[in-house]
């Protein structure tokens, strides 16, 4: 592994990011299995301030496995006035959920959606089960966050290939996904990997070398995971400053169709 370039500062006991940061993966609200350590937008914003995170893409915990429509209604309570918390709406390929997302989209409120776990209810992530949803998202240019633990890898590869215009963000790769991340990124040129859990040694550099920095985004998956460690990691790789800025904010801005600071 080549050493860091000379522009990288040496680590110190204190850390703050040197590029703008958007956390692309934050869960809010209580999961059905227990309370969240973060109970309010103010608490979340304080956590973001502590780690130097300007904005965060947030979804509601109830949207993961219970109800995407209710989760989205609860998410409204977390939206702050100044736009630092960017809503991500949960979605499932069922009529109530599709109707809700369509209405939100018609009101210009959808910049991204997140896949509700239907695999554990027996629906595989394959075109025959998701065609209406994925066609809509592809046509509208709406990116879909896909938690990797909620889909079978083989199904995901098949479906990514079937919808080449879909902007997919693959969430929560773990070291147990080390054998599949390259195949997933090869399956679609529009697929992007979120990095909250991905820690095999040297993999950020190796993946950026192979696929380019525009295929990776910073997310913490707070409060499941602490907000700071992956951000610290990304600031101590041999990525150049431009690549770091892409991974920490630029790529997700592009996906969301937003401009930081606007």
């Amino acid at each position, binding site marked *: *592994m080549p050493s860091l370039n000379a522009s990288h500062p040496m*680590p110190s006991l204190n850390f703050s990011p040197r590029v703008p940061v958007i956390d692309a993966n934050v869960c809010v609200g209580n999961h059905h299995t227990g309370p969240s350590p973060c109970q309010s937008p103010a608490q979340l914003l304080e956590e973001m301030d502590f780690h130097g995170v300007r904005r965060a893409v947030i979804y509601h915990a109830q949207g993961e496995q219970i109800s995407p429509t209710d989760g989205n209604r609860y998410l409204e309570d977390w939206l702050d006035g100044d736009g630092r918390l960017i809503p991500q709406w949960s979605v499932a390929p069922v009529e109530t959920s599709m109707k809700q997302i369509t209405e939100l989209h018609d009101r210009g409120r959808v910049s991204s959606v997140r896949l509700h776990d239907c695999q554990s209810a027996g629906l595989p992530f394959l075109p025959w089960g998701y065609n209406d949803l994925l066609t809509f998202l592809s046509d509208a240019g709406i990116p879909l966050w896909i938690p990797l633990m909620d889909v079978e890898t083989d199904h995901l590869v098949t479906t990514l290939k079937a919808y080449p215009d879909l902007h997919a963000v693959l969430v929560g790769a773990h*070291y147990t996904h080390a*054998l599949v991340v390259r195949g997933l990124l090869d399956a679609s040129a529009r697929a992007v990997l979120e990095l909250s859990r991905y820690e095999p*040694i040297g993999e950020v550099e190796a993946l950026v070398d192979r696929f380019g920095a525009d295929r990776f985004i910073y997310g913490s998956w707070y409060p499941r*995971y602490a907000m700071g460690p992956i951000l610290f990691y990304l600031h*101590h790789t041999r990525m150049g400053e431009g690549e770091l800025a892409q991974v920490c904010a630029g790529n997700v801005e592009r996906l969301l169709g937003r401009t930081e600071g606007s």
Partner: protein
Amino acid sequence: MIDGTRVIDYHGHVGRWERYGMVDDPELLLGAMDAVGIDVACLFHIFHPDGTTGNDLTARFVARNPDRFVGFAYVSPTMPERMVPELERAIDKLGFPAIKLYPPYTPWPFNEEPWHPIYEFAQDRGLAIIFHTDHFINNRPRYFENLAPAYPRVNFVAAHCGNVPEARAEAIAAAQKYPNVYLETCSTYRTPGVIEELVEQGGADRVLYGSDMPLMDPRPQIGKIITARISPEAKRMALGENAARLLGI
């Protein structure tokens, strides 16, 4: 070195596990260590129950960069006749300063009789032992409450500090009761507030930074310490001062 503190990573491996992206290429380890100021990494090889095979591989790995790596001895009670002779060889001939044990690769919880010859050896020598700990029956940190007073010259280190809340609470409780119990931080769970919990409840003088490299990159793992809401003094202790004291290096 970080702000004048020598950084010691207390948990790393020699050996390959490619299906999880784990490759023990020294350049890979050193590159990641250099990027965040890690001076020394403690390494062990846990894939060979005889101990000897893995310990020799560890010694060979360390010998290529002796100022950057420290080897720990590994043995398994699944080959009981090998345990003490191999520990004598690893400590006396290979120069390893501490022991690593991995109960998940055995049928026995680590408080049971098959493990005790190792503890007696460590008690005679005044050695530290790092154990894999979690919430499964073989690996419960609550066993330290029996072992720590029975072997007061041994320093017991809970790797991963139990990983999950119920097991972490056991490790902290043992550290609160006994001065020879330590809490090591590496985990694929990077739960918010854990480092703060270890420092506040277990004591800053008991926390050891570890990464599990090369299974995991040391950079996000050291990031847990750097980005935690703890004092600079606590960070210095966790990053290296406690490990240096424990290992006498």
